[in-house]
């Protein structure tokens, strides 16, 4: 077994031998499940929803809001912060607990260690994707069904969306690892993740939508790329973009962000003396 395979294996073991991963997984499941089910119930039962007769405009809005894809997309549109956080913690924890010393003693090939971490956290990100989708499809889809809206679970488009959502969560795990390498301060990395994903990016996307030039740049924001990859979310509706990226372009943007940020981290903090 070469040192890269060994690095991937041991990075998986590192994640699964501490409690952080399942603590975050439980919160992810509850958060996504509650929001998806709550939104499904709320929108399906506003006057004019499917089944009741109401004004045409209200009905159109309700039908748009209760598209199952939009409900299922909560897995990534609000859940993507979790794989980023776990990925960032995986890297910053090594700095914080000075465990880079045993890590680099076990495997002096630092490039392999970082790539191993990225690939392992991509895997765990995918697992988070599965957990988030069980929540959004299970609870959100269930709430739709109760409200008399077809959850479209036999539709191949729905399953394609689920697959793309898992891919998006996986890529966000990789981005988290790179981010942690750029910002080895654990507190700093957590603040940046939360501030950017919950506040800065949504505002930027809204602001970018006001002119055509900024809107075309705004498509490359990580959240916008995620929406392009997975499917429209509420943010997309808030900042109606012209000509959004295709799903594979969105995926490539996320891969690019992960690669660039990881390379910066490798070139700066990762190669430093470990004292």
């Amino acid at each position, binding site marked *: 077994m070469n040192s890269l395979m060994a690095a991937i294996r*041991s990075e998986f073991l*590192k994640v699964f031998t501490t409690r952080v991963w399942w603590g975050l997984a439980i919160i992810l499941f509850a958060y996504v499940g509650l929001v998806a089910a709550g939104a499904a119930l709320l929108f399906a039962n506003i006057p004019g929803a499917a089944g009741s007769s109401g004004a045409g405009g209200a009905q159109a809005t309700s039908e748009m809001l209760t598209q199952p894809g939009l409900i299922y997309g909560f897995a990534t549109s609000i859940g993507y912060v979790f794989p980023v956080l776990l990925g960032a913690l995986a890297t910053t924890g090594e700095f914080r607990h000075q465990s880079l010393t045993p890590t680099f*003693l076990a495997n002096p090939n630092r490039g392999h260690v970082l790539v191993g971490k990225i690939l392992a956290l991509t895997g765990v990100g995918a697992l988070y994707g599965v957990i988030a989708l069980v929540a959004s499809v299970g609870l959100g889809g269930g709430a739709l069904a109760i409200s008399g809206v077809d959850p479209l679970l036999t539709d191949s488009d729905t399953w394609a969306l689920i697959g793309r959502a898992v891919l998006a969560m996986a890529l966000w795990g990789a981005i988290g690892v790179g981010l942690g390498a750029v910002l080895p301060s654990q507190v700093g990395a957590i603040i940046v993740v939360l501030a950017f994903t919950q506040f800065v990016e949504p505002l930027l996307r809204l602001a970018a939508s006001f002119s055509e030039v900024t809107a075309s740049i705004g498509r490359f924001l990580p959240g916008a790329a995620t929406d392009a990859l997975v499917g429209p979310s509420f943010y997309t509706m808030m900042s109606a973009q012209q000509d959004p990226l295709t799903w594979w372009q969105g995926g490539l943007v996320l891969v690019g962000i992960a690669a660039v940020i990881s390379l910066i981290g490798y070139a700066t903090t990762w190669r430093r003396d470990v004292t």
Partner: protein
Amino acid sequence: MTAGVTIEFDGLSKTFGAVQAVDQLTFHVEPGKVTGFLGPNGAGKTTTLRMLLGLVKPTSGTATFGGVPYERLPVPAATVGAALEAASFIPGRTARNHLRVHASAARLPASRVDIVLAQVGLLEAADRRVGGYSLGMRQRLGLATALLGDPGVLVLDEPINGLDPEGIKWIRGFLTALANEGRTVLISSHLLSEVQQSVDEVVIIAKGRLAHVGTLASLDAADTLRVVVNSPEHERLAAALDAAGYLYDEARSGLIVHDVEAIDIGRTALAAGIPLSALSRHRSGLEDSFLALVSGGEDHA
């Protein structure tokens, strides 16, 4: 076990900004012996060991295992086992899981985990989180990590620090046994007294420079000869020493006589008919010559 190889330091230097932390270190550490790497805190011991292990990049010079740098060893942990002082553990992980992670990262068989846990006496505490461990238990876990690959070379930074008296006795026997198997054992300490019962060879550095290399006995020989002598007839003993022209200091344990062999004092007392209650070579010499070497290093700086 892989065979012990010679650790070779050759002109090793490290500069942090304007600070010369390690300055032109050249020495060898041989297999089959326990070598103490000594110097006061801040002398550059840890930086030297970190350069040897590929964690810190030397400004110039090399540190190798039989000519091969750490990062170029095929499976480093199977040749060299290391435990560094700051090698801390993720507090939420158990000792067993820490070793499993290390074994998989270092490409060592997982079957070694229970063996080394038993070797350092941590088998019963293996499934507790390391966050609740005492300093002594962490030292044992560090040693277990170093032993995972059954390596021919052991590099241990301050391994005795934090151990209780029983643990100190245990680790002394353990290190000697490892060296007797033909392994190269290098341990650092800032206290000579802490390691003087375990080491065969000493390498002393001060302010990043080499101050002394040799056997433990060579350190003793550098000491001036002193003898402790005491008698119930204290006044008469002092008078006899004065008469014979010896220089001495008053101490709680008796009189400390300078530049003399014990037999000469014995003859002087016998000739004067003075009964003696104590007569011995003064044994604080090792520590004294260590301190002299270490403070001598300051003059270079």
